């Protein structure tokens, strides 16, 4: 049983060992549609092959010594029925195929989505949202078009080939000579063609991507290009890429021009005609049968024309399935631990010689500290020093490698994930709000929160004022009709969201910048309210917040280089002093700080 952070009870499961098995299993969920689609295709091709037979008998009738107009009319009427019947069967089988393709698309997307929800944060951090989107949108659609029209047409043209050959064999077995030779040669020519085209077409697509990427870079970086007068450098880069694309384009055209099957088909027609004419002169074949034979040969054209396209679709579909499967198969490191420790928290956090690496890159090494219940610990360090990672270990967004993290004396890995994450709230640096109403965004953290509770949380977060400023108040939908929120407003909504769950432990990545002091006054008041009575790990760029924290951890390269109060660190830690260096009045003695009173 694989591990998941999120599961759905009655979900269908699919064989994920190989793309072919996976797609087959998806298809087999809908056996009836599959049967109608395949059976219908078979019937369709039989009916389609009967048409040349009828044409042949029309010729036979007309060329008979005593031809009858009535017989000709009967044949034409039969043909009319046949054409209409063929059309009907064709529609039915196509619709069955559509049902099949669209359902598999829906199911695959659902499977992917469910699996993504169950993956760990480590996984999600590794994946760019854009890549996941490409899988969920592009690759899933690719699978749909692989089935319809891809596999559908592939089966259709294959059946058409077999049945046409069968009918020719029924006409006279020795007539099979030309079409069989043709089929073999055709297969070989096709393989040769595809093998030559694929690398060129692939290189061409790739080069188009390179061309676009380079161009995008020039256009986005135009200020730098212009101010450093590097237009010539950019022009040369672009022309090189464009010229390379042109060469591939010409090469691609040459390969396409060499497509041999049409030539083979004309040769086959000539061969068939020769063979038929010879049998005719010997009296072993009627003229009508010859016409039937030639018309059946014409049916082979369908298989010739369509096959590259369908093979291509099938291949693209398999590749897409493989990419989706890679994503589905990714193991997740955590599980829900439903049976784990579950209790109200007091909020003591202890890091005991914690080491964590990300792949092979060490992120945190031997980190130890203790936060007493209710304390605020500010974490200071450069980008990449491990600040955010440190905070994410507390609610097991990541699991550590060695050492221990204790909350109220219990290792976080022993807590049930529900109880742990339910009592630890995080306000991320990049605040994510969903495009729904403000009330729903605040209430997102606690299913079934009352309107009054939501408004109280908003008021505590100093957000009530601006929310009521909107025409629709709490029902205002974020992102709709030009409703955009400033960084400060977003942050206050996130604070309200966290306040609603009343967590014991708070992780606050407070790195958004307020542009003005009035907003800052509001945010800081909200944060003060938020910190009251909670243990807080605080990542902040605000010097005043660092200054007033109960404790400061200074991180460098994943190690705690010093920890203590502001005054202690200012006295003994060079790195810490450097941070405040630019805020001393020019010429003033080192320890004294600027004081501008109001």
């Amino acid at each position, binding site marked *: 049983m694989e591990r998941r952070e999120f599961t759905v009870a009655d979900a269908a499961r699919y064989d994920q060992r190989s793309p072919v098995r996976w797609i087959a299993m998806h298809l087999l969920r809908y056996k009836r549609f599959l049967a109608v689609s395949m059976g219908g295709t078979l019937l369709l091709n039989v009916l389609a092959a009967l048409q040349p037979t009828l044409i042949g008998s029309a010729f036979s009738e007309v060329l008979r010594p005593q031809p009858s107009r009535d017989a000709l009319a009967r044949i034409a009427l039969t043909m009319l029925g046949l054409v209409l019947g063929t059309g009907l069967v064709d529609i039915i089988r196509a619709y069955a195929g*559509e049902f099949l393709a669209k359902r598999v698309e829906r199911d695959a997307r659902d499977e992917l989505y469910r699996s993504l929800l169950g993956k760990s944060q480590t996984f999600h951090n590794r994946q760019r949202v854009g890549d996941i989107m490409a899988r969920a949108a592009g690759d899933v659609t690719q699978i749909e078009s692989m089935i319809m029209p891809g596999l559908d047409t592939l089966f259709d043209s294959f059946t058409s080939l077999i049945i046409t050959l069968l009918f020719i064999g029924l006409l006279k077995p020795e007539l099979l000579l030309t079409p069989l030779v043709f089929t073999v040669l055709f297969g070989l020519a096709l393989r040769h063609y595809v093998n030559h085209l694929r690398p060129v077409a692939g290189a061409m697509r790739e080069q188009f991507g390179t061309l676009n990427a380079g161009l995008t870079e020039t256009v986005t970086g135009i200020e730098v290009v212009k101010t450093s007068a590097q237009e010539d450098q950019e022009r040369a880069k672009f022309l090189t890429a464009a010229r390379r694309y042109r060469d591939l384009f010409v090469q691609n055209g040459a390969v396409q021009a060499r497509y041999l099957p049409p030539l083979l088909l004309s*040769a086959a027609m000539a061969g068939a005609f020769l063979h038929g004419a010879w049998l005719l002169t010997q009296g072993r074949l009627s003229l009508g049968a010859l016409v039937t034979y030639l018309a059946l040969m014409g049916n082979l054209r369908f298989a010739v024309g369509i096959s590259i396209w369908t093979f291509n679709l099938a291949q693209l579909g398999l590749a897409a399935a493989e990419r989706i499967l890679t994503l589905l198969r990714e193991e997740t490191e955590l599980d829900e631990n439903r049976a784990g420790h579950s209790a109200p928290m007091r909020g003591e956090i202890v890091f005991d010689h914690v080491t964590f690496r990300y792949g092979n890159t060490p992120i945190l090494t031997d980190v130890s500290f203790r936060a007493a219940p209710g304390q605020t610990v500010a974490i200071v360090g450069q980008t990449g020093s491990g600040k955010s990672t440190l905070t994410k270990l507390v609610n097991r967004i990541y699991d550590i490698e060695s050492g221990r993290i204790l909350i109220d004396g219990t290792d976080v890995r022993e807590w049930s994930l529900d109880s742990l994450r339910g009592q630890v709230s995080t306000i991320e640096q990049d605040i994510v709000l969903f495009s729904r109403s403000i009330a729903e965004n605040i209430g997102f953290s606690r299913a079934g929160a009352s309107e009054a509770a939501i408004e109280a949380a908003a008021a505590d977060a100093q957000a009530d004022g601006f929310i009521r400023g909107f025409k629709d108040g709490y029902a205002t939908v974020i992102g709709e009709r030009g409703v955009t929120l400033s960084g400060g407003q977003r942050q206050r909504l996130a604070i309200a969201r966290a306040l609603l769950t009343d967590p014991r432990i708070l992780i606050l990545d407070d790195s958004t910048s307020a542009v003005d002091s009035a907003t800052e006054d509001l945010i800081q008041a909200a944060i003060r309210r938020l910190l009251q009575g909670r243990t807080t790990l605080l990542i902040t760029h605000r010097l005043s917040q660092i200054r007033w924290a109960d404790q400061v951890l200074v991180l460098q390269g994943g190690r705690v280089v010093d920890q203590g109060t502001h005054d202690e660190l200012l006295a003994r830690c060079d790195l810490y002093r450097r941070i405040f260096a630019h805020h001393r009045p020019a010429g003033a003695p080192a320890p004294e700080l600027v004081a501008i009173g109001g």
Partner: protein
Amino acid sequence: MGFVMDGLDPEPYDRAYSDHQLVRRIAGYFRDKLPLIGLVAVIIVLNSIMDTVLPILISGGIDTLAKGQNVTGAGLLIGGILLAGALSWTFNYGRQRLTAQAVGDVVLQLRADVFAGVLGRDLSFYDEYRSGKIVSRVTGDTEDFSNVVTLSLNLISQSLLLVILTGVLLVINLRLTLLALIIAPIIMLCALGFRRIARLTIQRSRRAGATVNAAVQEAMSGITVAKNFRQEGRIYSEFRNVNEQSYAMNLRSGFVFSSIFPLLVTVAGLGTTVVVFFGGGAVLDGQVSAGQWYLFVQAISLFWFPLTSLASFWSQFQQGLAAGERVFALIDAEPRLHQTGHEPVPTLAGRIEFRDLTFRYNDQETVLADFNLTIPAGQTVALVGHTGAGKSTLGKLVARFYEYQAGELLIDGRDIRSFDLPTYRRHLGVVPQVPFLFSGTVADNIRYAQPTASDAQVATVAAQVGGGDWLAALPSGLATDVGEGGRGLSLGQRQLIALARVLLQDPAILILDEATASVDPLTEAQIQEGLDLLRHGRTAIIIAHRLSTIRDADRIIVLDHGHILEEGTHDGLMAQAGPYAHLYNTYFRHQSPDYQPGSGFVPVRVPLPALAAEQPA
């Protein structure tokens, strides 16, 4: 058959070209390829003739067999069939190869021209159009244009086949030809009607698809929030609903698409039935021979394909022309910068003088009116003021990114309009708010403005900025790959790299737009140290957002709606208790380490006129 139906929004710089102009313009690009094009035309005609000859020969063969059992005649015909097939293939081969060559060359030339056009635009152009749109013109539209050329040539060859064959059939029997052609309008109508319905259903299912994608996108960007609050079940059930809706829409559009081919095939089948019946009758009446009858039956299947392509051709053709039009519009757009001369600028001291300068981005709003300011060489000037006060405009005018409408801008006493811009700009170092990095390594980016700089030089400047210890935080130091657009690095790191880039460039004038977004305190300290180093000995214009930067400046200029309200040093201005003190209360107070909410105000005696409401930049 392609159903290209992406909506294309027209842009204001588009101009309508008359058909005549457009054709002349396109022809201009093909002029060098004239012999090649002529050859292609000849080949197309020959190719179509050969394609028509094949069924005619077979029908002739049938007649020979039906009448006299003349095997030698049949043998001759078979030779003819083989020859026609081989020639048709060879002509087709030649046509495709030559077309690819001609089109490839033309598109290359077109791309070079349009790229030059893009590079020649001033910054206002880039402000107005998103980069994606510009890129799609240079590559996407030129590609569409080339597709239409290829498509047209294919279609001409197919239509020619249609015309020649119809001509042959008409000669044989008028009535039967008309009967066979009955299906032509029906097929065309079916195909056109289908396109109309398909367009609607595609739009609907695209919309449904976009909803699903939006749901996935939102869930994936918000996955951390969902995890933190254990709300995965909720977003899953919401996703299920939209997925189900999108399924319903997709199924409907699938039905539409799956109906068209059975329908067209049935119409063709009906045509065949008609020809079989009436053709057989005509044979019995002695009007046509059996072989000719066979030719009519064959003709139906030969007609079918060109007819369906014709239905979709017109809109594709128009789109290709529209793409061409957009490309030409970009090439032909009027430049907005007017240089009066191209005097080289070998050295620069860095004195900047605005004299009665007036500037507006557009007709509605004047940003600077009769603006006067002189910055002596070597001075650091901090510009402060609300959003829209004109701070960044000053820097952009000095960089000559925009054209001003009146007055003068003098650099070292010379008119900026008389400069050769590339040599002038080599003396400018610009650090934007969010510095842009080119893909490549950190070292590549530092040396961008000086491509010939040695590794040692790069390492030296990198070590000078912020004491160089920011390099230790990069996974591979100077060799670290910055990722697409610098995405692999933090904002602070990008700023440090931009500072190093400018330091290596060693400009006379530094224009720096300080980031409003905050950077972690340690990196901030490194940036400040880098800035101290960089502004030393240069003229520096800093659009300042940091209290520490402002305090260190030689001169603070308080701007409001394009006017200078006050200038001086931090301490002097604070003592004046005027507009600057007001700005301090509004923007800089909270940056002090001693700040507590609601405290730290300084007294203001003179209220700032027309104080705009606070707006985030």
